[in-house]
């Protein structure tokens, strides 16, 4: 088996794909359908689509849009943004999404448990957004605007116990930084739980992805690494070939 490499696509309020830095400075990337078609051709492992303002704007998911997007995806698709309950998630699954990504709602153990019971743990991912404050990692909500006193390890154990089958560990400080994942954060959370941890926030190139796996992540995700090329961050949708990935992982000892 080979660890997954997951492009994360961010939707703005008008359903355009954007990329952020530290959760702001949105840069336009392209039309979601075009990008998904390109990623289909590149045979990506999985994609994760996040409607980044849905929660803050208290917007409901556009189910027609999600169904249309899902119909273009011949790879696993996870979707997040504003999902607060089983009632919110049910039509998203019906639209053809494999896995829902919970942000704030992942703290609500009753909802996580209800989703896992209905759809299975593998269909429920908890996205834990983290920010480093005074030398301590802390979990944040609402696009990083609400900082909690909880540390990511405690949060990860809680969502796993509630029934989440996967943890997307997002480092807000490194969002868009393209200088690599934070080793301390990734390894501490990966060691603390038995479910797969997906590292997100910081990767800029293939070597960073391999590093993330060595830190203990089961899968690695990135926005920037697959949409920008070069120092000037020109927009170009890329994804490594299966062969390139195998070679890289073999060299780095990340593949099993």
């Amino acid at each position, binding site marked *: *088996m080979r660890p997954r490499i997951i492009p994360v696509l961010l939707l703005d309020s008008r359903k355009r794909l954007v990329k952020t830095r530290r959760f702001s400075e949105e840069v336009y990337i392209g039309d979601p359908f075009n990008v998904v078609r390109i990623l289909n051709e590149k045979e990506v492992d*999985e994609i994760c689509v996040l409607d980044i303002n849905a929660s803050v704007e208290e917007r409901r998911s556009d189910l027609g849009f999600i169904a249309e997007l899902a119909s273009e995806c*011949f*790879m696993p698709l996870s979707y997040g943004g504003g999902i607060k309950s089983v009632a919110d998630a049910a039509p998203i699954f019906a639209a*053809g999404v*494999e896995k829902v990504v919970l942000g704030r709602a992942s703290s609500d153990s009753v909802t996580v448990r209800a989703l896992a*019971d*209905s759809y299975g743990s*593998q269909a429920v991912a908890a996205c834990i957004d983290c920010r480093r404050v005074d030398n301590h990692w802390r979990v944040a909500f609402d696009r990083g605007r609400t900082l909690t006193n909880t540390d990511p390890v405690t949060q990860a154990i809680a969502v796993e116990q509630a029934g989440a089958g996967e943890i997307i560990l997002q480092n807000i400080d490194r969002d868009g930084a393209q200088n690599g994942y934070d080793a301390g954060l990734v390894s501490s959370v990966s060691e603390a739980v038995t*479910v797969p941890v997906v590292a997100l926030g910081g990767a800029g190139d293939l070597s960073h992805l391999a590093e993330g796996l060595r830190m203990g992540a089961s899968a690695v995700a990135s926005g920037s690494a697959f949409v920008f090329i070069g120092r000037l961050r020109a927009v170009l949708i890329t994804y490594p070939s299966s062969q390139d990935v195998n070679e890289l992982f073999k060299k780095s000892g990340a593949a099993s």
Partner: protein
Amino acid sequence: MITIINYGVGNLSALINMFEFIGYDARIADESSRILDASHLVLPGVGAFDAAMNRLRGSRLIPSLEQAVLEREIPLLGVCLGMQLLGRRSEEGLTKGLGWIAGDTVRMQPEPSFNLKVPFMGWAGVECSPSATLFDVGSEQRFYFTHSYQMRCDHQSNIAGIHQFGGPVVSAVQHKNIYGVQFHPEKSHRFGMRLLGHFIERSR
């Protein structure tokens, strides 16, 4: 027509989309009559064994499924949990499976030294048996898996493919007109397209 069994479990639209993409019409059905006149049946499934089995039983489709599959020998493909339901039982639950494949489902417990996490979510190469109908023997086979439980078959002859997850794990089963795949062909790019195409073309 290709008929995807709707008992309230599984990603039906993804299957429909992929069949359409490779040029076949498929329909979703939850009535006995449609199951009995299907050319091919697909039994999807995600989530917990008991929940899915209870829903299938609650749908009252099992008698017509038995008639379609066991008597009329309409080809059936179980996908993911849909494959596990073909067996006798699962460690995950208490209810009985369909019992069409001589096998039981158990939790995957890879040795800690492999450093593998359960559920396994990801891609794996499948090594198929030389007689496997749904695979192109000798070419690359890569599929997307998401599972915590694995099927164990009584008879080697029912194992159509294996993948490695800290040891060999059954990725596909086959018994007469009954097929099952642990992975998600509808989410496995051209590899899945080819497999679904073979199911339609080769299974009768």
